[in-house]
């Protein structure tokens, strides 16, 4: 009985904090409820988010707001073609002792923050992009012979513009796979535009309060991982990931026609973990098929590599995942 009460309290606490974060972000960000929800989900799962959208739809504002609300350290890196890895991770510089003599001292780069905004990540060279790989996967940075641990929670929120492709370097598959979600920030609706105009063209107070700090965020992560998932539901998540492979028996006609490589096992991990957070957010202590389906698209869309036919026909990976969701049996 005591354990049941403790579990119930954990669920309520998680849900309450999640709601407070969402509401506080919503004070500044208008019309992107699903993006906000999934970004917080990714943050609580310990994953990184790739935000894609045209300029001016609020990608950078979202990341700024999230850092403010979460009481976390924030840094922004503007990716450009001449950006070097040392500009991200830091470098050893020569310092002079007060009593004479010199020594090397590590000067941390902007990656040493809780929330890192990698703005227009596809504008940097692959060499610089790969500087993020170790940080994103192992939450550490290696400079010379020394490896530095990054402070938890660590979240990379990268943005990229889908239109301007001139002078960009598409992210390699290994880098894409390390993003927990790829979220598309769409143009706001007419009603949302009204609210945006009213908030930004008046002298309105859009300051946000810090509702959750780092240790509380880590506690929420621990709670999220405690949610049990039944084997049939987990099997459905696995079938979803396997179904993106053309040779899989679960593959749909579109997958067989347009996909070169399907999602990696990280996709199934992301789906299950995100589904647990979605279940907690709904006040449930179990994961349902509905929770899995709700997070399948952002977890799979960037992990599917199209073949030439798919590229030539300008097929969207969203269409492929949606067909998979519609066709795959839940039993």
């Amino acid at each position, binding site marked *: 009985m005591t*354990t*049941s009460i*403790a*579990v*119930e309290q954990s669920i309520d606490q998680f849900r309450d904090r999640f709601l407070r974060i969402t509401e506080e972000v919503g004070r500044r960000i208008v019309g992107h409820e699903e993006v906000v929800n999934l970004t917080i989900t990714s943050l609580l799962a310990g994953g990184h988010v*790739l935000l*894609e959208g045209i300029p001016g739809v609020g990608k950078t504002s979202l990341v700024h707001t999230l850092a403010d609300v979460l009481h976390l350290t924030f840094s922004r890196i503007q990716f450009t073609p001449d950006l070097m890895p040392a500009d991200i991770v830091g470098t050893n510089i020569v310092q002079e002792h007060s009593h004479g003599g010199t020594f090397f001292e590590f000067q941390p780069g902007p990656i040493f923050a809780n929330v890192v905004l990698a703005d227009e990540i*596809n504008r940097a060279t692959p060499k610089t992009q790969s500087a993020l790989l170790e940080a994103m996967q192992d939450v550490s940075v290696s400079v010379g012979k020394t490896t530095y641990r990054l402070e938890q929670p660590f979240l990379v929120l990268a943005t*990229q513009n*889908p239109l301007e*492709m001139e002078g*960009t370097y*598409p*992210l390699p598959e290994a880098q*894409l796979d390390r993003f927990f979600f790829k979220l598309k920030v769409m143009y706001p609706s007419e009603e949302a535009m009204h609210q945006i105009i009213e908030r930004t063209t008046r002298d309105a107070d859009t300051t946000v309060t810090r509702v959750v700090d780092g240790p509380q965020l880590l506690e929420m992560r621990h709670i999220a991982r*405690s*949610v*049990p*998932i*039944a*084997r*049939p*539901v987990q099997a459905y998540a696995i079938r979803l990931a396997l179904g993106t492979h053309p040779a899989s028996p679960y593959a749909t006609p579109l997958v067989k026609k347009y996909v070169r490589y399907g999602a990696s096992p990280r996709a199934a991990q992301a789906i299950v973990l995100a589904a647990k957070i979605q279940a907690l957010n709904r006040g*449930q*202590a*179990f*994961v*349902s*098929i*509905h*929770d899995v389906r709700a997070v399948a698209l952002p977890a799979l869309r*960037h992990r599917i590599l199209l073949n*030439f036919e798919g*590229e*030539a*026909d*300008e097929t969207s990976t969203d269409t492929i995942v949606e067909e998979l969701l519609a066709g795959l049996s*839940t*039993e």
Partner: protein
Amino acid sequence: MPLAALGAAAVILLGRVFFARREHTVSDAVAAGIDETAGLGGELRSASWFASRDTRDSWADYHLGRAARRLGDADWRALYPPIRAPRAKAVTAVLAISTVALAMFLPGRESLWPGASAKAAAANAIRAKGITDADLLLPEVQKELEALLAAAENGTAMPGGTPMTATELRSLINRLNALRDAGRLKDLARAMAPPGGGSEEPSKEMTAIAERAQKAAQSPAVAPDVRDTLQKVAEDMSDAARASQPPNQNASETTSSKDGQKSDAAPGKKGGDVDESSITSISEAETGGGAGVIMMGAKDEASGKSSPGIGMGGGSAARTDGGRMADLEAALRRETIEANTDNGGQNVQTEARRKTEHGQATVTYAHSAAGTFDRGRAVAPPPVPESRRAAVQTYFIRPQ
């Protein structure tokens, strides 16, 4: 009888109740279906899986407890309303009770047609005495068969001095077919044995009749249709005689054909009516091979005069116009001699293969000079369709 039926029904009913009351294992598909009907949002499906686990943590226990509360709160009678069919149930009950009452209390019914009733009574009487239709046929069949055999042996082929039509013969054959059971044929043979001459072993009497019929069939004065009939009688009687022989006698006959290739196939039935006893395995002992040939006895092998044929079984010797054992033996001997004298080098194909395997082939691989590229001979790549041109150009600048 009605009480036994009632008892059986009661046992079935008890079994049904026991089956319905025992604990069922709910499959995932069933749980998912109920979950969807009750609108439980996947909680029942998940809980049913955790309920089947032996070990559970506090979260799973909490999940199960909450699922149980939700299941208890669900209005299952509204979701799955009971089937109400009072009229159908009442009619079923009345009919069931009426059936039992009729079966228990009413006497056996009399037929409405007196003639049919008399026939049925006579048939019942015969059945009660253990007499069958075949028994009733015996005396007249005995007479006609005796007359047929006597006429054939006398060379008249006219039983009783009057011509026997094909219709009458077919009638006789049909009646004999009704007696193809070995026991019935034994009775027939006993009945046809001369007075005081009946032996203790019925198989001998049957064999005697079979021989009589066979001899009669070989008489030149016998008409073709009568000959066929007599041969059939002889075969049936011979089969019945073999079947009625003691088991040890059968075994001795079977083992007597061990030296199969030189002797003959076991006596069998006609090719179209083959049974297992007509299959004989003949091993080729002289050629040293362990392989055996399974051959079927031919149509005329009942007398044991013919030799086994070469065929793939099933009495195929006649169909394939195959040779006989002597031909097979000669062919095998010739092949064996040829194989022994076939030395390496004399066979052209063998020698050619050996040379190749030993690397003595004269054909060797030689590097050729690198070909010069002639632009004039280069084939132009297929033109890119206009609709795809933009996609091909931007292929390597793939959007994320």
